[in-house]
């Protein structure tokens, strides 16, 4: 039984992959929070709570949902837009919900424009620039998502959520698996359900996203 917990950083110059620290992925019907396996229902509630607590809750959609390469992807994109609109409706005027795409994975030089995109090779730039304190990855290929999630955990205090269509992500602080249109819509329902019940975070970190 590992003592390691997947928590908001900044964790380390080069943080370990959570899998190498003994964190295991959830089975179908489960999620994980901070590396602890939980019933999926609990993950919905916590994800919605984290979104509503954040000053800048942000969704990062990746290529698997940005491009209409099959019918399912197009439907998921619509669901993600719905989740974003719901978030915007449910946060207070002091909060700023964002939707920033990860259109592809190539490193871009001299640097990306963090206003308009996030890149898996230096995702911390987008987090820092926009002061994002809670984000959700969706539609990002698993390998690239894990790279991003680990680098974010290493250098920022941002809370990370993964809405994964495959087996989930240990490197996120909270992860769903087998993501579908229904699951994204259900998360939007939870956000609406918790609207007005969650206090916005006042935490200010010197080296993280909440500066």
């Amino acid at each position, binding site marked *: 039984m590992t003592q390691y917990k997947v928590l908001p950083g900044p964790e380390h110059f080069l943080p370990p992959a959570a899998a190498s620290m003994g964190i295991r992925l959830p089975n179908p019907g489960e999620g994980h929070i901070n590396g602890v396996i939980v019933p999926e229902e609990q993950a919905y509630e916590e994800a919605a709570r984290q979104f509503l607590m954040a000053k800048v809750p942000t969704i990062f959609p990746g290529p698997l949902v940005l491009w209409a390469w099959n019918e399912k992807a197009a439907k998921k994109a619509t669901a993600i837009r719905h989740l974003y609109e719901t978030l915007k409706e449910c946060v207070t005027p002091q909060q700023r919900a964002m939707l920033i795409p990860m259109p592809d994975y190539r*490193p871009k030089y001299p640097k990306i424009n963090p206003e308009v995109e996030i890149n898996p090779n230096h995702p911390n730039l987008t987090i820092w620039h926009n002061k994002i304190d809670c984000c959700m990855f969706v539609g990002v290929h698993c390998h690239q998502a894990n790279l991003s999630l680990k680098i974010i955990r*290493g250098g920022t205090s941002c809370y990370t959520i993964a809405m994964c269509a495959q087996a989930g992500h240990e490197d996120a602080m909270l992860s769903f698996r087998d993501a579908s249109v229904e699951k994204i819509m259900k998360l939007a329902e939870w956000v609406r359900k918790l609207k007005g019940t969650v206090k916005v975070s006042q935490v200010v970190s010197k080296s993280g996203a909440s500066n």
Partner: protein
Amino acid sequence: MATNSVIGTKNKKGQVITDARQMMFEAPRTPSFYTGSEVIKEAIRRANVDVMIAYPITPQSEAAALIGELFAEGYVKEYFRGESEFAVMSECAGAAFGGARVFTTTAGPGTMRAMENFPMWSGARLPIQMIVTCRGINSPLSIQPDTLEIAYLLNTGMLVWHAETAQDFYDWILKGYIVSEEPDVHLPLALCCDGFFVTHTKDMVNLTPADMCLPPYDPYRSPVPCMDMECPPVRMMRDPFVMKSNYISYATHASWQQEVWAAVERSRKHTIAWIDGLIETENTDADVLIVSSGTAVSQGREAIRLLADEGIRVGLVKIKSLRPWPWQEIREATKNAKHIIVPEFNVVGWMAREIKASIPDSDRVVSGPRVGGGMTMPPEIIVSEIKNALGIRNAAMAGRGS
């Protein structure tokens, strides 16, 4: 592995695409008397392989040739000979990048020649399966069994399994694809056996029905973008971060490496479920344990029988998976042992080193007996090592026949 939509349909050879669990655990088995090479052929017949690339090197040449027969029969979609082992492994990468289920076989110097490709396969998350029929690698030339090449594969980021018998071989070829194609794993598998001892001897093997095959590989579940007309490899390779000299490029590359090893860790859950644990044990309450992998385990079984005749009780730990390495299982299985004997078919004793690094009180480990260069390992020399560890006087094996 593809989604359920194709289960129950037939491929062009009339084989029913069958749920992997049903095929491997529930379908009737037919006992058959085959060589290890023939077993490789029979497993591939049922594995729904798209591409096999071959290059001759003993002792895998026969298996490579037999897969050619499968190609002629229509069970393998593409089959050709590469220009060298290096070329073969590079071509395997190309086929896997393109979304094919890929199979190849190699041995000894061929493994070494192709070595540059293996970390590349892992880094690119290509679930290629490679059979390694281990043989001597050093000069002077030897084609005989020797497991030294496995030591070089252990740090490539590939999954590495070590089969003891032809039955292991048959089951693990099929189960290997299932594990290595899981999206959270998606790594190449080196499925090793001891050349000649397994490939060229006949054994009874229980085969699944020939009219059933695995579901096809679904490249769109890959954790990295599948190469197609929308996503050619040049899009990934342009501006590779390794060509840049700055902190973030280095940090990304380090994270990439960590992710490969994280995937090896994730394979534990699947490997345990499919091959029934990373180790097998017998009588681990005994004071003396033999711990090894491959055919050294078979010789260990004989040694245990000989010692039982003399009233000496010895237990056994068979290590099936080398990557992921079953360190927790080994710690648990050896916790009561006073002497841990590690017989190996190589001169360096890499298995004993791995075990020593995994357990407390590692001076319990006896690194031997070891043979190399194709020598056999008579059970009597394992018996002798155990008696030495126990302080029992016994005749030196080298004196035999003088």
